[in-house]
């Protein structure tokens, strides 16, 4: 995949070429897909589909945010991570409200099968903890957004945020340890 082409198109689009987006979308999509697949190898295998999900998400956002001024593809990744965070937290909050409203349906049944997964509460607590981290260390919080919500690799995160890989790696380790500790004590 020609990454420079993507960058080129993004720039063209940023400078007002609407047609560039039409060509861009499939390319970005395909690229994201590849990245996502590569990244998920080595994680739990049942993530196979979440690679796709992430890409869908990116795609969705691409379509919806087509007026956003794209700097480059990494800008796009950063955007996607942020959006993913919003979507997830939004979803978790809505579902929590629904649950408290006593609406029980098949969905709740499904959730019982997924005990090892992140829960709605977890998502909300992660978001809250991340907001606290933002106050302590904005850069680390950004790294978490990319890595945790966006699912980006160290390398992608580094490129997205304009940092060096070792720095991202250090930030991530610390932020992860800090957040996990915070969340454990809740």
């Amino acid at each position, binding site marked *: 995949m020609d990454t420079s082409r993507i960058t080129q198109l993004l720039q063209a689009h940023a400078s007002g070429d609407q047609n560039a987006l039409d060509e861009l979308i499939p390319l970005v999509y395909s690229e994201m897909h590849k990245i996502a697949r590569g990244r998920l190898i080595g*994680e739990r295998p049942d993530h196979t589909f979440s690679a796709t999900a992430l890409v869908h998400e990116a795609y969705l956002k691409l379509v919806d945010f087509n007026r956003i001024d794209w700097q480059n593809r990494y800008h796009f990744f950063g955007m996607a991570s942020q959006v993913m965070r919003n979507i997830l937290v939004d979803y978790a909050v809505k579902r929590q409200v629904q649950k408290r409203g006593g609406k029980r349906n098949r969905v709740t049944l499904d959730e019982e099968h997924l005990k090892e997964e992140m829960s709605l509460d977890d998502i909300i607590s992660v978001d809250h903890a991340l907001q606290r981290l933002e106050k302590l260390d904005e850069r680390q919080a950004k790294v978490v957004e990319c890595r945790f919500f966006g699912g980006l690799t160290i390398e992608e995160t580094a490129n997205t945020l304009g940092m060096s890989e070792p720095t991202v790696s250090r930030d991530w380790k610390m932020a992860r340890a800090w957040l996990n*500790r915070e969340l454990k004590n809740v």
Partner: protein
Amino acid sequence: MKSRWNKIKRIFSEALMLEKDDRARYLDKICEGDSELMGEVLSLLDSHEVPGTLDQPMHNLRMSAISLARSNLMLGRMIGKYKIINDLGHGGMGSVYLAERADGEYVQRTAVKLQHSPFVSESQVKAFKSERQILASLEHDHIARILDGGLTDHGQPYYVMEFVDGKPIDEYCDEKRLTVHERLELFQDVCSAVQYAHRKLVVHRDLKPSNILVTNEGSVKLLDFGIAKVLGNGGELTGGTPLPDLQPEWQGFQPLTPSYASPEQVRGETITTASDIYQLGVVLYELLVGFQPYKLEGDSPEELERTICDSEPLCPGKRLTQSGLSRLASTSDLLQICEARDTAVSQLRRQLRGDVDAIVMKAMQKEPDCRYDSAEQLATDIRRYLAKKPVLAHPQTKLYRAEKYIRRNPVEITAAVLVFILLAAYIITITWHTQITHAALDEAQREADKSAQVVEFMLGMFRAGDPRVNPGDQITVRELLERGLGEANRLDNQPELQANMFNVIGKVYTSLGRYHDAVEILEKAVDIQRGFSGDTGTETARYMNDLAVALTRQGIYQEAYSLYTESLDILISQYGEKHPEVANTMALMGSWIPVTGFEESTRLRYKVLEIRIALYGENHLLTADAYMRVGQIERSRANPEKAIHLFGKAMEIRKNELGPVHPDVAESMIFMADVYRLYNMDPVKSEKLYREALAIQDEVLGEVHVSRLHGLSGMATLLSDKGDHAAAEELYLEGLMIRRQIYGEQHPSTAEGIGHLASGYSRMGDHEKAEYYLRKSLGIWETLLGPDHIAVSGAMVSLGNTLVDRQKFDEADSLFTRALEIQTQHYGENSGALVIAALGRLYQQRGDLDVAEQHLREAVELFEHTGSSEHFDVVRLREKLEELLVTRN
């Protein structure tokens, strides 16, 4: 603040780079006695080492969140000529929307299926277009039509389909509470749609309940035919013609619904129509059983492949046994599943076992070649099953075919059996009288043995509670009996045979709960036999026993008692005391305590034990039976340890003789559990025994599910004593459901089950419900047995007690009085101690303590008078009296 954070950050990162052993030294040095700083870093290092919240997978959450976000975005958009107006569902690869085509005059509601990922190559687009033509040509009543299809501006392929306002077939079936039979009938429509498409060379590839809708009118519609192939998730599975230019990342996707994927699909091999057959099998499995054949959640692709390709799923009939379920679900799930199929657990298992198992498993064979050749063949087999004909899927044994024939023609075949008995007996009579040849005699003997077996077979079939008897078959059985009775009535010139026939038919009536008819017919048998073989004939004695059984059920105890006495005399005079039949008769006689008397019953039961040990030794099943009987005596005598010892002995013998997993072993366990519970000795042990026994019974339910009732109600009582009323209620209801299924509403056993349920409510303090059910139960008893039956008096006492709890003293009083009348009528003046005790309780509740005391005393005296002072009812009663006296002082 910030600088402190940065310090922590720096030390943390430095420490991480060091070997673990060096960290402590480093931290000591760098923190310079700042213990708070050191603590902070150490806790972060600890947290670094272990997985935490952030490390949990969130795939499903992501998917759900994205679906929601996406559908919010899509509303109102145009896809082709269609405007999206609602969201119908999302899968991993695509979404389905409700859309309207609003051009010109008319509005058409459609479903638009949109793939998320756009096509990236010309060849994909070309393949998509040609496939669309084929799909559009599918025209079948049970296939949703493809109306249109194309690519969005972004290159995403979409299909526009006829919108089907229906429910997934599994939901539909559950909601309408379709029986197994009805589900199978409906499923034939699914098969016919698949067959049609296969003839057009279209393979579905993704058959699953959510793709098989049923409209409210009950019409089946299959969605998404062939779409899986074109839309991404099946794209690489086209079998033979992989799309050129297809980029690697488009390949390797497994079907989106692994639960329904065939082994060849999981392995990424060539997909043929056989894959659809497999998926039909899985769907049918789920429709019938309520569970999917495999539990796949959370499996990795490798695990998934192993499970689907290598492991053998439990067949439907087995799945609903305790062992099949334990991995999956709770009893309440099971009850729900049965409820949705309008049936009882045992019945559902029975329905699934055998042919249905075979059909489903044949469709689900791992090897495509071993499955049904076509959907049509599968449908045909289902049709054959429904018509009670042999199915292809089943191994074709002779026995199997014969069984099929019998099931198909219950009336004719059993009539044939009857005729056969008559004929056989006829031959015997002839040959006996003319004594033609030895050969003929041998032949006749053989026939006689055979006919005896046939009689046994018949009795077995009619025996109430036999799982082979469908409740619906009782009508035919009754018709058959009427016919048999007619035949028997014409046998005046062959009295011995006639007596035999009356005896057989009478016993069948007994097991059907028609005691009145049974008594009448069995009396005839005894009279005829008596006339034939005289007062000392052993055959007469046997017939007397059978009559006595019916009489006790009918509540005519005195007469039954004298019959037993007479029959026992005959048998002892003919055989001596140490004879199996003598022991059997004593056992029968001793089993009905009210009239035999507690002492006499005790004596008889111990005598039976003695005779059987002498006859068969310690380790014999009949000895075990005798141990059970004396165990019950000791239980009632308030000797719990002894009772447990005796039941335990019986259990050991049964285990030795029958193996550990046998209903008789379970029975012994249940009796032990009862004692542990009744005497409050060891509720934990009691529960364990109940559960173990119920599991055994479940496992081998084939013959014994009536025996489950005892354990179920015992376990229920235990649970309700424990305060777990909800679980208890469930078990009571399950017991009642079984009774209703087997016996119907108007049967003593059902009345009894309702009574148990009521006692459960009473224990949980819901006296209102208890009253409702006790009235119902009393009503059944009265209808069945007339107003003067002893069982009616029992039901009256139960209702009366509940009425006392509800402070309805007057009605309770009149019920007790009536019950007392009935009991003295049956048992004589000195009976009804329990009723008098109940009256005592009534007065006590009313506050009339003088009269209460008077009644309780009278009750105790009566008990003692009848020689059952050791009975635990008396023991309890004495305690109550003591309590009353204490409160009075």
